């Protein structure tokens, strides 16, 4: 279990005057809508249980209002829970004293915000150095560190600019550099790229993935964008109305959606370009046909399988050993959209 960085157990959050009372209604099965209507309390989170693996990118996804921001803010306790526990590196964040919590935020978990959260009265370099200054790092050290991190996000030369002089994408790079500068292992990113144009967004995802290869941070990444989730997530948890309705390997979520809400979510993705053959292969011995690497996506192997005489292909691992096989029929099935079982029930708020 040592590779679990953060473990969230039985977490509830209810906004309102008497959350302790309201939490019982929720436990007894009351819906978010009913809770609001009958008791004037907002259900933020309901019985969340998530293990966040260390050094991986864990994506939490859901529509607006599903509780993503509320959830991520519990990890560094910007929001106090109604009930539950959050364990980070063996310490319960919810039991920390004020001072301990401050130390935790200074050294263990940093954050990147949707609206950047930069300090407009400080220069870019001062913004990046912010976490370091708060930690009490010497000014010289903070300055040289902030320079280093600005370089890493491609913003060297902008040290003395003010945030208002930069574009949105550049501002968020400052936000990212500021979060990385504190050397915290946990990086909390709340819709960090959602406010950016598609091209800039893709750039930022590349920057993040590039840095992650080297830095191996434990990243919790919030998004409402499935393409983004699939692109960067090592695992995905899907929230609806404050509840996790499915979590795990992104491939499994696409192939076996457990819920109409998720079916809706994955409706419009390009399945051929996302599903890897290892996710649908049959384990077993070699067959008579071409071979493909297990991480190849369906679209890439399709022409080869079609061209082969038996419409079947081998799946190999990194060493080139055959670990299973895949048939054309299975590829076609995987590419086809899953049926929406109940067509009338596709409007989620």
């Amino acid at each position, binding site marked *: 279990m040592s590779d679990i960085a953060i473990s969230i157990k039985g977490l509830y959050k209810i906004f309102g005057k008497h959350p302790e009372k309201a939490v019982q209604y929720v436990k007894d099965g009351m819906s978010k809508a009913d809770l609001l209507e009958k008791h004037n309390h907002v259900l933020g989170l309901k019985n969340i249980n998530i293990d966040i693996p260390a050094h991986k990118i864990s994506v939490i996804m859901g529509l607006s209002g599903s509780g993503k921001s509320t959830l991520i803010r519990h990890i*560094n306790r*910007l929001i106090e829970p109604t009930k539950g526990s959050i364990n980070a590196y063996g310490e319960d964040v919810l039991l920390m004293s004020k001072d301990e*919590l*401050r*130390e*935790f*935020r*200074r*050294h263990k978990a*940093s*954050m990147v*915000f949707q*609206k*950047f*959260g*930069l*300090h*407009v*009265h400080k220069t870019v370099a001062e913004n990046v150095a*912010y*976490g370091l*200054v*708060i*930690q009490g790092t010497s000014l010289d050290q903070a300055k040289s560190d902030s320079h280093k991190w600005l370089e890493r996000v491609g913003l060297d030369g902008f040290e003395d600019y*003010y945030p*208002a*002089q930069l574009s949105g994408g550049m501002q968020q790079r400052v936000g990212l550099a*500021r979060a990385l500068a*504190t050397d915290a292992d946990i990086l*909390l990113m709340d819709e960090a790229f959602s406010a950016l144009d598609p091209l800039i967004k893709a750039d930022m995802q590349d920057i993040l993935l590039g840095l992650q290869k080297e830095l191996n941070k434990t990243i919790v990444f919030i998004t409402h964008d499935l393409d983004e989730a699939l692109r960067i997530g090592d695992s995905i948890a899907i929230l609806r109305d404050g509840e996790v309705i499915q979590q795990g390997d992104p491939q499994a979520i696409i192939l076996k959606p457990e819920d109409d809400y998720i079916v809706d979510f994955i409706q419009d993705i390009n399945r051929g370009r996302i599903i890897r053959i290892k996710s649908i292969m049959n384990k077993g011995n070699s067959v008579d046909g071409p071979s493909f690497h297990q991480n190849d996506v369906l679209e890439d192997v399709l022409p080869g399988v079609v061209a082969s005489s038996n419409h079947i292909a081998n799946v190999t691992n990194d060493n080139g050993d055959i670990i299973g096989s895949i048939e054309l029929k299975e590829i076609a099935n995987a590419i086809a959209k899953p049926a929406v079982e109940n067509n009338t029930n596709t409007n989620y708020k």
Partner: protein
Amino acid sequence: MSFFDKFPSMSRDELLDFKKNVDSGFSEFTGEYGEAIEAFFDPLLWFLVWFEKLLLSTPWPIILFIVGALAWAGSRSIKIVIGAILAFVAIGYFGMWVDTISTLAIVSVATLICIAIGIPMGILMARSKYAQALVTPLLDIMQTIPAFVYLIPVVMLLGIGKVPGLIAVCIYALPPIVRLTNLGIRLVSKEALEAADAFGASYRQRLFGVQIPLALPNIFAGINQTIMMALSMVVITSMIGVAGLGVPVLRSISNQYLALGLLNGLAIVALAIIFDRVTQEYGKRLQKHRYGDHS
């Protein structure tokens, strides 16, 4: 039906007794504590006298230079610097130099006191809604109660002179800086504060690193208002023996000296405009970086 014809009130005797009691109570209080309170304000008096003497003993060209330099430091505008110097030259030429310097001294000291008291008060108000609920009506009273009403107890307590004048000015001029400090801090964006919290800022780091710097333009608007209101008290304070431009104005009212009143009135206006332009320009410069001017 006579009950409805006249509002039921205390009898004359009762009312008289009530007023007498209040008056004698306050007189006793004055007798008891007047000297102690006066002694408490002694350092203030000493400072005000010292500052006024310092300004008056400074040769006028140096004062002109300082006025120009301060105007430049605040506004970075050559127009405002020239305007300020010309105004002071005119003031001197029309024989109002000494009164103007006295007014300048009391307004400066009053402003300093208001800053020293008002900014912490504003911070406290922004921090706690109870403080806000308590202080807001107090500020309302300070701003609306006629100055003559609070002059009575102040004069009873401290007599006539500079210190009661200064206190009267401060009572009137304090509210804007408190209000605008409070407002400025409350207007600091939630995002900026959340970022400070998320990185583990302590209360002090949050206050001095984020809230006050971001509230500074509003705080400056408050200082500007405080100065304006202090200047507008000049005539009233001259009624309780404070030297300055208010004295000739008062004299010209009772003797119908039109020119004298006009000149001194205009001198007050000139001071107000100079203070206003300089502090406003400074306030504008403070928030320049918030807008995307690529410099």
